């Protein structure tokens, strides 16, 4: 790229242009004004004005998770930057590629408790892959190049670049580098010598199980996973972030396991003799009590992050590298071994799994109920849309109902906050998703509590005329916490009723959005049609559901995975 003499602020614009950034979510303020000024009138990237920086962060996450491209957000110094913290932590926990750019006070003022000064690099050090405080404008092009590179490569994650105002105003000879050279950062690319060992384990297993996580989505390895699963014929379970890594509509898929997984999926895990974990990290929500997790299973663990290997569960055979690159090699090794030695007989195992599925199906009964059940609502939306939608959620019971009942059939169709579990994720994520996937149906399954954490950004969704449809499963409760109080705190509902809920229909109206309400099966039927027909802007649907419906099955925190309670 040719050299040009420009300011640091303009250099930011040039870098974002060079990186092909489409949207930047943010709000201006004193110390980031030069950058906003440099972006004035810029068509690509387009600026999206959010009403709270946390929303900007989550919207950038939604965009990234829906497209596989890096999300970008801006914040001014001090409160603008600290408002980004929750979203950055969320992106860190869920491995979402995110570049956050903040303004800061002038270098001469740093460390003096200046107006709106916050040590945002210090604050975000534990929740970023890396961050930078720019102290010399000449470093800016290299740092921005490295920031985008680090965010998206290896195990993706958030990075933050903090740029003092005087650096933004300084003119220099700008040239954007074509490549990076970071001595301490090398995503694994080496050959994996243990593939044969892994294949031997697969050949020797009689009760194998494929355990898919969010890494499949990151790697874009759905086709590779499908080929592997077809070859070995083992049942498939997924994590919350693994939803869509393998079609849940296929009989080979047992769906989500873990704390709120199905009984049959959890039984399969606990009884397997080989777990093949692909891009998953043995989170405590999926393992239950660790010392009792899959007690008879050997473990093949394929992950791009070496630090995930044997962190919680010791891998019998670790495979370190990108799934998309390594899995086909493993498939080939297994194919060769099967050709030479025949296939293991999985029939007895498949029969056992099938028996569990028949004996312990996921179920609910709407018929005869006075109130709508959340499970029914989700299935009703699924049926009307044929499941052809990108779904996002808040955090709580509604999220788990969505995970259990929304059958996800393909990649990047189920986007939720898993690792941090951030209430308020749904609306912001829906904004980012819809921008990243224009023309596709974007559905939010939200909770009344979660929705109220970020609802001010209905204004943003309205501004952009985004046809998102947010179904609030309104139980007038912080339901998931209430569920724990019912089960473990003798129904003492300390601070969980949300009975003074605002009128969401009027609220939607106040923001210029379409507001709808449903209380019965018949109303729901109509309201879904109305929502799906509204293409002119956001629709908010207040769905009144049975207030104390609980999510089952449930593995109490710290219990073994096969100790599920089911409320019967």
């Amino acid at each position, binding site marked *: 790229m040719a050299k040009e003499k420009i300011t640091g602020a303009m250099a930011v614009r040039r870098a974002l242009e060079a990186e092909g950034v489409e949207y930047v979510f943010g709000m201006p303020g004193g110390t980031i004004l030069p950058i906003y000024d440099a972006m004035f009138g810029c068509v690509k990237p387009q600026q999206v004005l959010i009403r709270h920086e946390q929303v900007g962060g989550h919207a950038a996450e939604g965009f990234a998770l829906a497209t596989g491209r890096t999300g970008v957000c801006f914040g001014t110094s001090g409160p603008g930057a600290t408002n980004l913290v929750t979203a950055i932590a969320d992106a860190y926990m869920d491995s979402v590629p995110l570049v956050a750019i903040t303004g800061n006070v002038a270098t001469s003022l740093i460390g003096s408790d200046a107006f709106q000064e916050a040590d945002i*690099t*210090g604050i975000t*050090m*534990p929740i970023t*892959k*890396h961050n930078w*405080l720019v*102290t010399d404008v000449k470093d800016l092009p290299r740092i921005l190049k490295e920031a985008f590179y*680090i965010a998206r490569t290896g195990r993706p994650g958030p990075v933050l670049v903090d740029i003092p105002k005087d650096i933004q105003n300084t003119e220099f000879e700008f040239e954007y580098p074509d490549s990076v050279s*970071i*001595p*301490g*950062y090398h995503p694994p690319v080496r050959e994996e010598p243990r593939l044969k060992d892994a294949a031997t384990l697969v050949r020797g297993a009689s009760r194998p199980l494929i355990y898919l996580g969010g890494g499949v989505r990151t790697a874009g390895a759905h086709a590779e996973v499908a080929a592997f699963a077809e070859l070995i014929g083992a049942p498939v379970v997924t994590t919350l972030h693994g939803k869509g890594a393998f079609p849940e509509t296929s009989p080979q898929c047992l769906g989500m396991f873990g704390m709120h997984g199905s009984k049959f999926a959890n039984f399969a895990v606990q009884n397997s003799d080989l777990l093949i974990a692909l891009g998953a990290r043995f989170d405590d929500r999926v*393992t239950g*009590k*660790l*010392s*009792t*997790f*899959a*007690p*008879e*299973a*050997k*473990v093949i663990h394929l992950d791009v*992050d*070496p*630090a995930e*290997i*044997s*962190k*919680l*569960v*010791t891998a*019998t055979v670790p495979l370190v590298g990108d799934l998309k690159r390594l899995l086909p090699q493993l498939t080939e090794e297994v194919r060769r071994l099967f050709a030479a030695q025949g296939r293991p007989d999985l029939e007895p195992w498949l029969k056992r799994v099938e028996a569990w599925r028949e004996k312990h199906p996921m179920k609910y009964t709407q018929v005869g109920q006075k109130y709508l059940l959340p499970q029914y609502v989700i299935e009703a939306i699924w049926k009307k849309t044929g499941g052809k939608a990108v779904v996002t959620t808040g955090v709580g019971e509604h999220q788990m109902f969505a995970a259990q009942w929304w059958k996800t059939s393909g990649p990047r169709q189920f986007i939720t906050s898993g690792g941090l579990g951030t209430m308020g994720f749904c609306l912001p994520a829906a904004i980012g998703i819809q921008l990243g996937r224009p023309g596709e149906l974007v559905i939010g399954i939200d909770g009344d509590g979660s929705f109220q954490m970020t609802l001010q950004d209905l204004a943003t969704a309205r501004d952009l005329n985004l046809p998102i449809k947010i179904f609030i499963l309104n139980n007038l409760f912080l339901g998931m916490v209430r569920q724990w109080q019912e089960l473990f705190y003798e129904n003492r509902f300390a601070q969980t009723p949300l009975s003074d809920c605002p009128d969401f229909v009027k609220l939607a109206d106040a923001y210029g959005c379409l507001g709808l309400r449903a209380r019965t099966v018949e109303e729901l039927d109509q309201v879904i049609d109305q929502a799906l027909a509204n293409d002119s802007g956001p629709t908010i649907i207040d769905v009144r559901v049975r207030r104390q419906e609980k999510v089952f099955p449930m593995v109490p925190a710290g219990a073994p995975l096969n100790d599920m309670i089911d409320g019967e």
Partner: protein
Amino acid sequence: MERNEEKPNGSSHTISLLVENKPGVLHRIAGLFSRRGYNISSLTVGPTERPDYSRMTIVVLLSTKTVEQVVRQVQKLVPVVEVRELSPQDLIERELMLVKIRTPERNHAELRALAETYEATIVDVSPDALVVEASGNAGKLDALEDRLRAFGIQEVCRSGRIALERGFKTLAPPSLK
């Protein structure tokens, strides 16, 4: 099948790091150790043969399993170019110690003799105080410190350990050699 739930008791491990000499690096490393609950018993940092890199030596009291995990986590920090646990057999480790002792002049001769057995030197003498300087491995310094206690220790300052491995092996990755 091992599930790494209980953290077994630890032993002493020496981890050596080559890091980019940039602001905030120490903060990043110390922060990682504290937030993941890895206890540091000693940490030193200093310049190397190249001005743009520093070497850190960190001694931790952890199980072997956990140390492997620590090394992998530390390796993920972008300014960390290389990190390895140094093998205990090949370890050359040294520490520097200064001890201020307040003791009447009549004891000085005895002190000098003691210092000599530990290859320590007396680097400052005033009428009722002196400063002993010693270096060596931690065990030797612990022993000396113990012996000095009887004379009335006022202050102890120890540098923490630095370490290299015997032989030709180095920490720097091929790209830096």
